[in-house]
């Protein structure tokens, strides 16, 4: 069952001109249009995600992976011009055209985003439990005991000490804050979670445990995910299929182990070799 299908998704920063797309991308070797100066953060992106599947997006900084993920997660940058078409199971029309209310409803119910920066996703003055509860309360939960029980369950699922539930989030370690983000993202049983650089700023061993927790919960709940990372290890661990991006374009895609072990595109080969 196809959950999300995107075609021709693009994010442009600048005035844009008719030549922007032809003059940028992998072949042109740049993501900035030489005619009008517009930065084509991503363009011509086609992809689809099935229920329960994990799609990885890798690339160096500036490759457009975060722009693409943000467009798919309905995160809006008022500076950007977003184009293309994204259809989503059970929803009529183009997801990129929805009004604020629909977007808000989708974001509190169907599609969750785990932000790269904890501060963008959590209110550090709220308790850890409060941050998770916010998702439920925004989705219309009105029974205190139900909210409480669900928050406790999510803490257990994501391996955050339940005893810390009512402490301010700012007193949590980086790994715990990341888990709170994940617990929050999963709170309303979304069909799709988008993780933007889920391990940035964490120690390697903490990274691994956070990723493992996410992977376990993701499989148990059958939630689909889009994982954006510059770290091939993260994508290798989580993703069933992987897209490789460069200069705002998808240059290669396939099963994750195939992309890692039998990379076809020159850039992917360089990327893999620079790590291994």
């Amino acid at each position, binding site marked *: 069952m196809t959950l999300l299908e995107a075609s021709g998704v693009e994010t442009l920063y600048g005035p844009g001109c008719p030549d922007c797309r032809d003059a940028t991308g992998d072949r042109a070797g740049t993501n900035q249009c030489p005619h009008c100066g517009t930065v084509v953060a991503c363009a011509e992106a086609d992809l689809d995600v099935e229920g329960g*599947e994990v799609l990885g997006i890798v690339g160096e900084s500036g490759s457009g992976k975060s722009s693409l993920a943000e467009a798919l997660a309905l995160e809006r940058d008022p500076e950007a011009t977003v184009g293309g078409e994204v259809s989503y199971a059970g929803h009529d029309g183009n997801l990129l055209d929805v009004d604020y209310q629909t977007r808000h409803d989708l974001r509190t119910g169907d599609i969750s985003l785990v932000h790269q920066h904890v501060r963008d996703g959590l209110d550090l003055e709220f308790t850890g439990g409060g941050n998770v509860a916010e998702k439920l309360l925004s989705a219309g939960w009105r029974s205190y005991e139900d909210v409480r029980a669900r928050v406790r369950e999510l803490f257990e699922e994501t391996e955050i000490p339940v005893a810390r539930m009512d402490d301010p989030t700012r007193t949590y370690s980086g790994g715990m804050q990341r888990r709170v983000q994940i617990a929050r993202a999963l709170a309303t049983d979304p069909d799709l979670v988008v993780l933007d650089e889920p391990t940035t700023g964490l120690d390697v061993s903490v990274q691994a445990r956070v990723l493992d927790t996410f992977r376990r919960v993701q499989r148990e709940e059958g939630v689909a995910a889009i994982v954006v990372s510059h770290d091939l290890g993260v994508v290798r661990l989580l993703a069933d*299929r992987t897209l490789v991006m460069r200069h705002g374009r998808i240059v290669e895609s396939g099963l994750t182990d*195939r992309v890692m072990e039998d990379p*076809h595109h020159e850039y992917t080969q360089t990327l893999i070799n620079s790590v291994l």
Partner: protein
Amino acid sequence: MTALSVEGLEKTFDVHVLDDTQVVGLDGVSFDVREGEFLAVVGESGSGKSSLLKCLYRTYDPTAGSVRYYGAEDEETVDLASCGDRTVMGLRGDAIGYTSQFLDEIPRVPAVDVVARPLVEQGTPTEAARDRARELLDALSVPEALWDAYPATFSGGERQRVNLAQALAPDPDLLLLDEPTSALDPETRRDAIDLLETSLGDGTTVVGVFHDTDVVAAVADRVVVLDDGALEAVLPVEAFDGEVGR
């Protein structure tokens, strides 16, 4: 009954980073695998043994040829060499297993969970999967004290046993083994082979690369001999003298 039919399988690597050098991994390999059979792939280092397994598992994209997988009786035949990624993902989930000589472990995940993981991913409840994992670790003589420890701290042999247990846990129809016993001492290797034989009694088809000819002799029904990416011979194990390459 044929389980797998490999025909004209080719794999060429275009290595762009080395001035577009073309490296031939497999050069037109054809053979059949019977259902429930244990087929050993042998050959010198660099003869294409691992490439063959990876092409079957689609970790490598075959350049040409076909790999017909017959699966269960009433299912349609699938060409593993050309079918879509999602078909491959579906088969990997429960029908086809693969294990390399190296354990792809995750730091700070205990051995029992490493082994249970494929079962959990298939939808087995976590506790039931852990029970099955403990059975397998026990059968492979992994000391009980290590079950809840992290494999990163294990010896090479212990890690390989965890790896093997992980491959056997989901009980696949077709199991692809890439040197799963290379780091084991003779005694443990014996356990591993016993376990393979017992667990494979019920119709699992195996294509395996083995470093040791004594293992081949002990477990294999037939032997595929590769030489420089090409098929040299398919022999019954009795006819295999342990000599590879000329």
